[in-house]
């Protein structure tokens, strides 16, 4: 821990040089170090150690065992199903997110706040309940169950059920990122394009889309991470048929319950890798948006001083 504290000093010296930063800390130095130590200790214990542990457990018995666990047929089919579920649910919720953000950000209508609350609903529903919904709809005792059986269509305990549950779980992600972004941007640029004779579609493609692309990407990667990692909802509707209806998180559970820990952590490490990539892309986009805002602010200041 003392090494950490020593490392802090140079950065602090830099901070002391900048007069605005120096006034940040009214509290005594030891309080500052103690708080940094507590925060880092807490994050190390709860975030960093688990992250390291996933990869350690996966690679404990060597690279060959790791590779064998991943190219195993059941594991490969789980990876394929996860990609299918995410590949269907992300585009669907992307289209929805853009449509909802367009309607909510560009127009005024009654019941807008109710609509916003309803869009957020899937976030506040327990994953297990999200799965239960589809059991009630498509199960043998469900609303559409008997009809589906007569027509020999399988939704529950099959791939369509997994896709539906994933769509439900990831429903708000893109909309939630785009709505505040488009509301903040207003619609002056679109109006200008339309007045100058651009078609609605061209305006969307050439004016709106470039403005929202980073927010869109942000929503998509979060949506994708959740789609690939969802466990509770998918667990209820999957039926756990090996090599057929197991996604990667479900495969992790099965292997773990069979005490095949190394294989379980091998698949888990792929999901952890996905989480790390998601966090890296997310940080990059946040940095881009920050730069973007800074440039905009500088331009505003420049304009203001010129006039």
């Amino acid at each position, binding site marked *: 821990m003392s090494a950490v504290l020593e490392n802090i000093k140079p950065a602090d010296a830099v901070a002391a040089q900048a007069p605005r930063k120096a006034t940040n800390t009214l509290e005594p130095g030891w309080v500052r170090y103690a708080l940094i130590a507590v925060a880092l200790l807490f994050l190390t214990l709860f975030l960093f150690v688990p992250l390291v542990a996933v990869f350690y457990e996966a690679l404990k018995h060597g690279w060959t065992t790791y590779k064998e666990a991943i190219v195993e047929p059941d594991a490969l089919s789980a990876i394929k199903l996860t990609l299918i579920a995410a590949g269907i649910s992300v585009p669907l919720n992307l289209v*929805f997110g853009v449509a909802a953000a367009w309607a909510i950000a560009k127009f005024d209508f009654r019941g807008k706040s109710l609509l916003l609350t309803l869009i957020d609903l899937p976030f506040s529903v327990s994953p297990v309940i999200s799965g239960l919904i589809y059991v009630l709809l498509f*199960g043998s005792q469900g609303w559409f169950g008997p009809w589906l059986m007569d027509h020999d269509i399988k939704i529950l305990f099959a791939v369509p059920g997994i896709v539906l549950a994933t769509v439900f779980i990831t429903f708000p992600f893109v909309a939630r990122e785009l709505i505040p972004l488009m509301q903040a941007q207003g619609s002056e640029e679109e109006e200008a394009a339309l007045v100058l004779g651009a078609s609605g579609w061209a305006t969307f493609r050439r004016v709106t889309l470039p403005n929202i692309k980073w927010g869109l990407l942000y929503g998509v990667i979060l949506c994708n991470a959740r789609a690939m990692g969802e466990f509770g909802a998918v667990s209820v509707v999957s039926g756990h048929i090996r090599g057929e209806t197991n996604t990667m998180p479900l495969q992790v559970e099965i292997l773990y319950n069979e005490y095949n820990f190394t294989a379980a952590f091998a698949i888990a490490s792929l999901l952890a890798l996905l989480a790390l990539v998601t966090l890296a892309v997310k940080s990059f986009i946040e940095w881009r948006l920050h730069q973007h805002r800074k440039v905009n602010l500088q331009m505003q200041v420049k304009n203001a001083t010129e006039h």
Partner: protein
Amino acid sequence: MSLATSRSSANRVIPGFGLSLGFTIFYLALIVLIPLSAIFLKTFTMSWDAFWNAVTSERVMASYRLSFGAALIGAAINVVFGGIVAWVLVRYQFPGKRFVDALVDLPFALPTAVAGITLTALYSSNGWIGQYLEPLGIKVAFTPLGVVVALTFIGLPFVVRTVQPVLEDAERELEEAAASLGASPWQTFTRVILPGIVPALLTGFALAFARATGEYGSVVFIAGNMPMVSEITPLFIITKLEQYDYTGATAIAVVMLIASFILLLAINLLQAWTRKRAGKQA
């Protein structure tokens, strides 16, 4: 006034209102509203007595106590440490800060099943952390304490991410004024800083609590899942489903849904309060 007129003319210029709103409502109804209504309609097929018995049985009451109790403790831990993490990330400079800041979102990005098996491995009696707790007589894995650990992990980003922007916008001049008027750092903290971040802390608490009550994936591995002791409500719903007791499962789901709707309402009110506070300060 001119703003209002330009707004309404914008409504006329910009196309696609009918299409976008129509599709939004259609998709919302198809994916969320109609399926969700199935839960409530299913409960209406039960008699009141059957419903009441299903949602107040001894075993389910124990599961509510664990789910809500552990979620409450987890959220409280996150208020304290999440608040400190947010403060440290906003106010201090230290090496690796960008990395630490990005890592805070790990519980959002890491699939819950992965979190579940990893925490179990760490806290079991021969795990990296568990081996040091065991001699002290503290058992975490396969006990209610394990549920608290998992729910703390799951709720970690909420408090940090709600408090962080509020601290960033806070006016430091007020703190400096308090200090120059002779307030001690502790007084400055309790009288100036804390009142400003209380709405955000409460919002973060409510978000972490709401998420934790419904959590399943990260908990089932570490909990041990003993009925009456370490069985969370979502797991009990699954147990009912596996026994083909669909109505029983649905009845408990309704109770959980109503609890989460109340929480959602509380969160919306808290967020409105946070915004109002921020607006007043600006």
